């Protein structure tokens, strides 16, 4: 054995020597060191520190080793397979082959020699990060994480890739082929397979969730070890099997047998680990399905309404025990009632009035037999003793598997997703886990009956582990025996419990206690914000008041706490509510030091603000705090940026989990419907009134979420869309549109503001009560004298879309006996078979609740009718925004300028102009002397066939999109004609155009042709509709002599025509020339030869000269 180790050591020593002397490795090592030093300086010591690594110091080795690992995984292939080739090439190798060492010693030695140099590089990388971490005043070294990441990232990857490359090299006997195969393998696993199949093919641990929390460490330790074992043992298998394959006669004829046996053993371990990994995840899907099916089975069984909970919890390391007393009201007459408790928890006893009750448990369901019939409406008490560890797979049964399996990452950091925690010194129990018995079942996909949660009164007594502080709803008081009691002064739908080594900073402002509760040692905010510590409460109060004003709802709690929770805590939005688990009554869970929010790098940001805005320290601090706090007011959370092909881009926004609205709404109102699980969310979205979405998001996507929702609702039913996983990101837009549509007739009748006020009043009357959507609709219907309730029935059908022709607004400046008035007229025609409602706003009133009918009004436009909207103003009116809501118009929201055409008249105001009137049947004002051909015209507008494109760009561009229109980036326009929409384009209903990358080739490579029918031979002015994208508008191209090149073909003549495209070119109709057209058709062809980045094909018109 000693000589075995000795020989391995000798061979490895000399092999390392060779590698270290080789330029390939030296250059790689120098590059790695340079890159890591630069990045570490940037992350830890520069003005733009990277908060994710400062907040979680374990992310420093994680980042460094992951980055190094990617490089070394590639380089190791070259070096590892090289020794076999070298041995073959060098005639001097044979003198070592004739030495008495065994093949195993030789192969191990060579592999170890390879590993050794990489391990030295890993040590250098770690040393670099330790040095820079020590040099950084803002963070500390997490020593143990260095060891962990070294063993879970570097070692398995290296053993695997070195083993695999040597094995392949021996089998294929061709180094070039081995390289190509392995590089292809790396490329495919890294860029294509990535995190698919539960990270199974992620041998570099590039996607595997490896983030460590300073509070709970690695909650997914089992998964990590199993996953890495797959590759470690796969590597060993390759290495062991290499020994018998190695082309040197073994020392003894049976010398290979042990290694074959060992390789079989390691292969079994590797396959076993792979099986465990995959089956563990598959089991989760199966068990989740089983939970849901069990819920389905019991969803209609008798249940109770629990009026009062007295919960006692004792925390133990890794587990908790609890005794929960409940006083409930039977909702049906029965002797057996259904309750639900996390299936990970074991029940020890259930009692009622000192009598032990018999119960049946099926996973999460407890069927409690009271031994006597309890009549509907009767009250009973019971207590349940239970304890154990929560099963996290029981959470989010409504969330599709694909969504659960998506990785949660920022930059290179992949975090696990956990919904509760129970460690030796920490616990986080949220209602989603059902950590205490709740009446009825949890999520059922068969009936929304499960969802009828009720408001209960809670008291909670907690005995935490020594030195830990429990947090929950209500004011926590410490008792003499070391336990803590909580008694929220309001009824709640559920209660949560957090236990940890918490400290807090609190301040009372206007009878609300604002607190930040952080884990001891995590106070990174006090010192840098010291100068404005007195101002912060006022900033919080201002934000609270802003939100209250915006949504006309008040904050109902006496406390507001931001509570730090472990980095891996994750929540999903449910279809029925915007409230995610990060929000609990009176509290918000912020993941560890807000690691994924770079703005929390407070010191640096204050300095940056001072520099960027030339402001003082205090003002910069205030701005930063306001910015940080604004997360509670934003509806959108993260934006996902993706490209669906060359030049086409897409942005999807996720709901912001920190949006504070549920504190004002969901935790105090509960609107439910037996048919529509989404009831609560529909009302929430209606009250938020945010249909417009982000303009910039629309600009990037070429179509807004709301418009997508409209188009989807035209073809699908609301129910289908609610269950469509692919449309999850559009859920708010879809439900929002349905809400707007549902209430619009009533709003029309009463006025938007009055209607909303009534709705608020009804809600207020139902504070901390459950209220049925149908009964709200019934009441609101009676008040508004509209049949809202039967409108609900239309939710079961797809919605045919009306289309509107929106005229240019006309402003008449009237001087009526010395007094100035402005009359604003706009004509909107509904040219479809379906009635529709449009919303008219003046000025920017988005998100504002304005009661002035002139500035904020919904107007019914019946099918095939037009309406003229007139309003009188003392001053020049603001721009007009027409939101066509659920319509086929694209963009659905159009802003019309009222400044361009002001007519002056001196006269009396007419009677009709006195009021805001809506005369019907105004005829469509189409000019008979002009003909317009738009790009939406499928017969008269023709695009050239696709130009010859290389195979690779064609493949890269080969994408199928659900919507015809997409966004594009001006800096990298699409290589095919791509449809996009924008209010600036021409279009009767759809303001769209086609965009393509321009070329310098003479005559261009692609064309767009408009064939315009000529009514009578005459002189015509020919116009092209110009839209300047931002690159032209702001002259980003820096090109002052770009032009669009046209060919005008009429009769036998073909003439060239041009439009100069510079920042001074006018938007809208631009004349191409005056022609005498004799023939019945004129062809105008635009080529993509242009000095700009792209060419846009929109609309062409001819106007007859009189």
């Amino acid at each position, binding site marked *: 054995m000693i000589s075995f180790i000795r020989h391995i050591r*000798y061979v490895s020593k000399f092999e390392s020597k*060779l590698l270290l002397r080789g330029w390939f490795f030296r250059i790689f090592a120098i590059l790695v060191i340079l890159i890591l030093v630069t990045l570490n300086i940037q992350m830890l010591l520069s003005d733009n520190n990277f908060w994710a690594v400062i907040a979680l110091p374990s992310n420093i080795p994680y980042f460094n080793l992951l980055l190094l690992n990617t490089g070394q995984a590639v380089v190791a292939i070259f070096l590892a397979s090289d020794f076999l080739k070298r041995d073959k090439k060098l005639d*001097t190798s*044979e003198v070592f082959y*004739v030495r008495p060492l065994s093949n195993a010693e030789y192969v191990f030695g060579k592999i170890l020699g390879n590993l050794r140099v990489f391990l030295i590089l890993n040590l250098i990388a770690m040393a670099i990060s330790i040095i820079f971490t020590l040099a950084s005043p803002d963070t500390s070294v997490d020593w143990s994480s260095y060891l962990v990441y070294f063993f879970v990232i570097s070692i398995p990857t290296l053993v695997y890739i070195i083993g695999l490359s040597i094995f392949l090299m021996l089998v294929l006997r061709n180094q070039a082929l081995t390289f190509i195969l392995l590089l292809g393998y790396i490329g495919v696993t890294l860029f294509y397979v990535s995190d698919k199949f539960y990270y199974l093919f992620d041998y570099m641990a590039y996607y595997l969730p490896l983030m460590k929390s300073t509070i709970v460490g690695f909650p997914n330790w089992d998964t990590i070890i199993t996953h890495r074992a797959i590759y470690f043992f796969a590597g060993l298998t390759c290495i062991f099997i290499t020994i018998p394959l190695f082309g040197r006669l073994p020392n003894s004829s049976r010398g290979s047998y042990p290694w074959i046996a060992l390789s079989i053993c390691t292969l079994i371990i590797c396959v076993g680990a792979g099986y465990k990994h995959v089956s563990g995840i598959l089991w989760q899907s199966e068990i989740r399905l089983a939970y849901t099916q069990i819920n389905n089975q019991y969803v209609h069984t008798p249940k109770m309404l629990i009026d009062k909970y007295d919960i006692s919890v004792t925390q133990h390391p890794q587990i908790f025990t609890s005794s929960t007393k409940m006083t409930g009201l039977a909702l049906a007459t029965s002797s057996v009632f259904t309750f639900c408790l996390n299936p990970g928890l074991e029940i020890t006893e259930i009692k009622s009035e000192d009598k032990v009750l018999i119960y049946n448990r099926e996973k999460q369901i407890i069927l409690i037999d009271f031994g006597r019939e309890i009549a509907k409406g009767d009250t009973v008490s019971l207590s349940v003793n239970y304890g154990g560890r929560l099963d996290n797979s029981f959470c989010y049964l409504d969330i599709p598997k694909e969504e659960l399996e998506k990785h949660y990452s920022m930059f290179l950091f992949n975090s696990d997703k956990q919904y509760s925690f129970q460690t030796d010194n920490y616990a986080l129990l949220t209602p989603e886990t059902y950590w205490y018995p709740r009446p009825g079942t949890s999520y059922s996909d068969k009936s929304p009956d499960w969802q009828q949660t009720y408001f209960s009164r809670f008291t909670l007594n907690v005995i935490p582990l020594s030195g830990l502080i429990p947090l929950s709803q209500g004011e926590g008081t410490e008792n003499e025996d070391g336990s803590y009691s909580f008694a929220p002064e309001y009824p709640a739908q559920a209660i949560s419990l957090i236990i940890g080594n918490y400290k807090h900073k609190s301040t009372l402002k206007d009878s609300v206690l604002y607190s930040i509760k952080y884990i001891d040692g995590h106070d990174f905010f006090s010192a840098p914000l010291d100068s404005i510590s007195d101002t912060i409460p006022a900033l919080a109060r201002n934000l609270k008041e802003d939100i209250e004003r915006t949504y006309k709802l008040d904050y109902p709690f006496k406390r507001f706490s931001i509570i730090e929770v472990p980095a891996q805590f994750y929540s999903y939005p449910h279809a029925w509510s915007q409230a995610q688990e990060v929000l609990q009554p009176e509290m918000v869970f912020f993941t560890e030091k807000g690691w994924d929010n770079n703005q929390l790098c407070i010191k640096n940001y204050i300095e940056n603000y001072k520099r960027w805005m030339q402001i003082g320290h205090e003002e910069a601090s205030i701005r930063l705090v306001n910015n940080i706090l604004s997360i509670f007011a934003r509806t959108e959370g993260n934006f996902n940026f993706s490209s669906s092909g060359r030049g086409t881009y897409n942005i999807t926004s996720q709901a912001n989990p920190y949006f504070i609205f549920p504190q004002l709404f969901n935790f105090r109102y509960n609107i439910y419907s037996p048919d529509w699980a989404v009831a609560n969310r529909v009302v929430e979205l209606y009250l938020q009134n945010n249909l417009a979405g982000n303009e910039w998001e629309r600009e990037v996507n070429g179509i807004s979420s709301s418009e997508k929702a409209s188009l989807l609702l035209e073809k699908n039913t609301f129910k289908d869309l609610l269950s469509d996983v692919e449309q999850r990101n559009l859920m708010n837009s879809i439900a929002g549109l349905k809400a707007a549509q549902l209430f619009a007739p009533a709003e029309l009748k009463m006025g938007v503001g009055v209607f909303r006020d009534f709705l608020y009043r009804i809600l207020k009357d139902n504070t901390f009560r459950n209220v049925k959507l149908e009964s709200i609709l019934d009441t609101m219907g009676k008040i508004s004298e509209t049949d809202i309730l039967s409108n609900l029935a239309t939710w079961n059908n797809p919605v045919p879309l009306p289309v509107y022709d929106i005229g240019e607004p006309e402003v008449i400046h009237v001087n009526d006996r010395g007094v100035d008035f402005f009359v604003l007229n706009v004509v909107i025609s509904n040219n479809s078979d379906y009635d529709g409602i449009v919303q008219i706003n003046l000025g920017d009133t988005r998100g504002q609740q304005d009661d002035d009918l002139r500035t904020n009004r919904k107007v019914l436009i019946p099918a095939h009718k037009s309406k003229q909207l007139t309003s009188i103003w003392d001053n020049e009116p603001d721009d007009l925004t027409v939101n066509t809501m659920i319509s086929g118009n694209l963009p659905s929201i159009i802003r019309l300028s009222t400044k361009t055409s002001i007519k002056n008249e001196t006269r009396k105001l007419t009677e009709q102009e006195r009021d805001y009137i809506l005369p019907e049947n105004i005829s469509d004002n189409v000019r008979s002397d002009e003909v317009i051909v738009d790009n939406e015209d499928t017969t008269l507008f023709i695009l050239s066939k696709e130009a010859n494109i290389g195979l690779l760009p064609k493949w890269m561009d080969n994408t199928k999109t659900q919507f015809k229109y997409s966004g594009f980036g001006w800096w990298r326009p699409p290589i095919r004609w791509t449809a996009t929409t924008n209010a600036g384009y021409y279009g009767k209903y759809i303001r769209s155009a086609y965009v393509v990358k321009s070329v310098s080739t003479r005559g261009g490579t692609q064309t767009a042709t408009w064939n315009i029918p000529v009514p009578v031979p005459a002189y015509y002015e020919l116009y092209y509709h110009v839209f300047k994208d931002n690159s032209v508008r702001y002259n980003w191209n820096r090109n002052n002599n770009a032009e669009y090149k046209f060919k005008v073909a009429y009769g036998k003549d073909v003439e060239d025509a041009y439009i100069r495209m510079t920042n001074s070119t006018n938007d809208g109709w631009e004349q191409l020339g005056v022609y005498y057209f004799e023939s019945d058709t004129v062809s105008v062809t635009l080529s993509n030869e242009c000095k700009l980045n792209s060419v846009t094909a929109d609309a062409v018109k001819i106007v007859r000269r009189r």
Partner: protein
Amino acid sequence: MITIKGLNKVYSNGNHALKDINLEIPAGMFGLLGPNGAGKSTLMRILVALLEPSSGEVNIFGYDLRKKRKEIRSILGYLPQDFRFFAKYKTYEFLDYAARLSGINSAKKRKQAVDTMLDSVGLFDVRERYANKLSGGMKRRLGIAQALIHNPKVIIVDEPTSGLDPEERIRFRNLLSEVSGNDVIIILSTHIVGDISSTCKRMALMNNGKISFNGSPQEMLKHAEGKVWRIKVQGDELQQISNLYPVISTIPSGAIWEVQVVADEIKDYEAEPYTPNLEHAYVYYMENKLNLWTND
């Protein structure tokens, strides 16, 4: 003692490289002579356990080559035929590596052995130089040094002097002779007769995969006694002579040529017998004894 019985080697391409070799090699220098392609290197590579024989037995100092490779490898020193391309090791490192793998584990002893060996092969001054940068002769010396570093009982050197200048060749032979004093077996494979005549007590002649002769160089010489002739011919008769007999050398002497040939007897020409050397014996053996000579 090395005993080889019924040794055969057939390569996968069907080439029958060794045909029923039977040989006993005692202690001392043993020369293996034969033309290129005779199977010498195959035999050497089998003896050093780099190649597996197809059949037959080899026993080295009591160890069966098929079963006890480790033991055999531990008493073996080997210098292959080609010894030019090195990994990037310094001269002393190369020796040090070889010493380590041969079981000299004590650092002190190893250093001493390496230094002594470097000194005895005259490479001490270039010990820091990368082995690749050494001259051809130095590389050979380094080769023999690594083969001797662990005092092996069997030393196998394959074509050690090819490509060396005469001075280096003599030096090399002397080095081997020195070592052969210590009760070791040195197998010297070569196609250069001079290497064997000056050093080996016993030798074998290989041709076409077979052992054609096994004995002492003197015995080999005996075979050629009276078979080497000197003939004086005119220039125009040279061609005719070379068609009739294997010619060893032709030396011009005025208008006539002095030609040395090997043959059992000379007809039609006036020939005088000549005292043979090993080279003559080798040619006689190869051309006449083995009936390879054809005068077609």
